[in-house]
């Protein structure tokens, strides 16, 4: 496993601060690696240009 960059760490810490969450040193590596995984998935979803009329599925009916 490669060491997380300071940019990744700073981003995770900044986001945690905005929601009032203190990140302990023990959880930081795991949070950074999980955030990297979610960023990968976010890119897959965000590559799609959806029409403005495509609403979020708040009240989802299959």
């Amino acid at each position: 496993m490669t060491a997380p960059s300071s940019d990744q760490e700073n981003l995770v810490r900044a986001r945690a601060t905005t929601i009032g969450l203190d990140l302990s040193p023990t959880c930081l590596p795991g949070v950074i690696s999980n955030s990297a995984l979610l960023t990968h998935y976010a890119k897959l979803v965000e590559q799609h240009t959806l029409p403005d009329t495509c609403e979020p599925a708040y009240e989802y009916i299959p």
Partner: protein
Amino acid sequence: MTRFSSAHAIAEAIRSGKKSAVSTIQETLNTLRTQDHGIQSVTHLFADEALLQAQKIDAMRQAGQTLPPLAGVPFGVKDLFDIAGHVTTAGSIVLRNMPPAQKDAAIVQRLKAAGAIPVATLNMDEFAYGFATVNAHYGTTHNPHDLARMAGGSSGGSAAAVAAGFLPFALGSDTNGSIRIPASLCGVWGIKPTFGRLPRAGAYPFSASLDVVGSFASSLDDLITTFYVMDGSTPAPEPATDTLRVSRLGGWFASNLAPELVAALDRVCASLQTTSTVELPEVASARAASFLITAAEGGNLHLPRLRKQAEEYDPATRDRLIAGALLPSSTYLQAQRFRNWFRTKIHELFQKTDVLIAPAVMGEAPLLDAPTIMVDGKPVSARANLGLFTQPLSLPGLPVLCLPLKNTGSLPLGLQLVAAPGQEAALFSVARALKKSGLAGCVPLPEKEMA
């Protein structure tokens, strides 16, 4: 012996007076106390309450009353279903100081009204966030077919207890594959009903957009019977199998498969005379959207506790939940918008077909001490990737029946039968045909594990 008996057989023995409900429950409790050490499927027994309920059923019979259909049948619940008078821990110690549940979960109420008796809570990944049932607080559930292997998760205790023959059926929940993956790896029947069909009241939540409650069973008849009890409806007429348009899912769902699974899929499709293959669009994005929605909603759900008692969580669960809580809102909303787009595509597909066939998991259960699987020629974490084929089908909320394959020459392998929303009866029709043809059925344990 109640071990390996079906719910129908147990209920019939009690109804006919061959066995009492009390002796049935006593035998079941004894089996769970003495036979589960190597598997570790059980986290708590409801011995006193179960025996009390059994006494009431025996009293009803002695009084000449008509017994309900599942009278005296024992079952287990994933550790996230409320049982009145007990704290629902959801596979964690974080909730241990919460007040006991005031009433049973809705589907437990319906099953109890039909005479079934909850006897145990069953192990799971903490807060259902995993595919392995490797739990830092309550231990690892082992696969009854090979104790060195994963049972799958997150409802692994439920699948393992059914596969081991301890219980004829058990309840689980499925957000990204948590019924289908352990059902496949343990060789039992499983159903993830249409999103929203069964009431979730009293089931501890994980991801409100995706959570579905369902069940495992050792027999298809029991799976279907208990489904309609939980649904609170009378069984729907099943369409004749030969009138259904059955298609195989290709593309994403045809890659990374073990050779035994490819051969079994071929046999199943030949038996059903299925020649058409269809593909879902943007499957990788559908899986990603399911992943992101789960992470964001799970993270948000636990954020108040993560601020105060993060150290009490399983470290693996904690770090996933925190990462989910940190996701930008725009990412979550894009995933929810993509879900609606994908829904439209799914409905278009079901204009041309009725039932889809797909693998549930790519191969046999991974070894617990080498938890990797091969994806695109590379070893990757099993815990993160066992949902490769289940997660994309979670997103649209479709009903999926997980079917255990027989005679594969391997450890258990499973298929997903997928229908349009609300069309569970079509799944039951196809499953019955495959059972009748000998291609599907609960996979017997190897003799050394039966002892």
